[in-house]
């Protein structure tokens, strides 16, 4: 029995549309996307001999990566959602197997969103990467937890791809400008809190 004939599931196009709109329906769309292809985890265990935990991690990373790509408009719909997702999942499974079978120790380097880094020229990128390598990512994450709820939500929504205008609607701010000012103030607050303990 095909479950899709008996259970009213949203269509791929609806999930993609809800993800792109960054509205209140986005979280539900993320849930639908995760649930729709959750059987990939079994594929990870069966085809790639991963443990359930590793297969779950790989699948979670696949979904997070897919959400990021869909919301930023990088999914062009040339193949079906399933085919596209399985390709990402397959590549991540292969990466995971390589990681498990080689003894190379992981290089501890703060990985910055490549989309942001791509703005910089190579020379500037190298300078910035050196500065980032000197930063304390663990401390920064800790300090983040101590920011107020409002600040954390503002920064989280922005990092999740919401524009200031969309954040204004979601969090009921008057304008996108107010959101921007508040968000940058939160960033400054985080910086002061971080510098206080780092120095």
């Amino acid at each position, binding site marked *: 029995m095909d479950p*899709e004939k008996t259970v009213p599931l949203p269509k791929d196009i609806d999930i993609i549309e809800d993800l792109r709109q960054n509205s209140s329906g986005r979280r539900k769309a993320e849930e639908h996307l995760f*649930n729709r292809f959750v059987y990939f985890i079994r594929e990870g265990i069966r085809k790639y001999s991963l443990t359930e935990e590793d297969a779950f991690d790989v699948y979670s990373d696949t979904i*997070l990566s897919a959400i990021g790509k869909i919301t930023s408009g990088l999914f062009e719909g040339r193949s079906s959602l399933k085919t596209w997702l399985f390709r990402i999942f397959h590549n991540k499974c292969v990466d995971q197997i390589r990681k498990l079978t080689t003894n190379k120790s992981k290089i501890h380097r703060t990985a910055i969103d490549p989309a942001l880094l791509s703005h910089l020229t190579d020379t500037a990128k190298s300078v910035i990467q050196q500065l*980032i390598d000197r*930063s304390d990512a663990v401390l*920064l994450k800790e300090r983040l937890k101590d920011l107020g709820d409002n600040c*954390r939500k503002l920064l*989280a929504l922005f990092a999740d791809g919401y524009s200031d205008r969309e954040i204004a609607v979601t969090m009921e701010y008057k304008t996108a400008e107010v959101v921007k000012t508040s968000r*940058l103030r939160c960033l400054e607050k985080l910086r002061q809190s971080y510098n206080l303990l780092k120095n």
Partner: protein
Amino acid sequence: MDSIELIDDYFKGLLTGEQQKQVEQRILSDPSFAEDLAFYLSANEAVRQQLADDKKAWFKELYERSKTSAVPRKSPVRPLYVLATAAAIMAIVLGGWWLFFRHPSPRQLADDYVSAKLMTLGVRMSSTRDTMQTAIERYNSNDLPAAAALFESFLQHHPDDEYAAQYSGIVYLRLKQYDKALHYFQQLAADTTLYYNPALFYQSLTLMERRLPGDDEKAKAMLQEVVNRRLGGNEDAQQLLSKW
């Protein structure tokens, strides 16, 4: 424009070509500016990481739920019917056991509470509250958008009526417009003249439903506060905490 705003605009692609070049030159010539830019990226990454951790924790819950769900999942290999039947029986037995003994998620707890206690509102006997009566009737007949409009309209004319704020919050909770629900419950919480004020309890319920990063922890702390201070909803809060 200060550094951080300039950097923000740079990464959002809002600068002209000339301004972009100036930013890149400043990275090489102004160490303080380069530090600002590096911090902007590191902070953004820290937030992204935290967000990914929170989402993975949520995915874990979804996964655990999917394993016990009655809905069969697609598989490229069709199992033998005999094995499938045996597996289904096993899943029902284990699923029943799991459903009986598991700790439900905060959202599940909130859903159960809403289903049990917030599907209808008590009809008020006062003859002076026509709009309120109509709003409650609409709510009870599940016409939630109409009920929301009427409760809000009533609240505009009676800003001190605690039921109007409370019911406006409840209807938006049911409509899953959590930020609006919180707005009304916070408005209700600000009224310190009430002997019985369940605002904090309802705020907690809303956070349990909304589930943004940090909402669960905050909801639990609020429920604890309701119990400790014996606020409105105290007994329900105790029950929810016992199942958490």
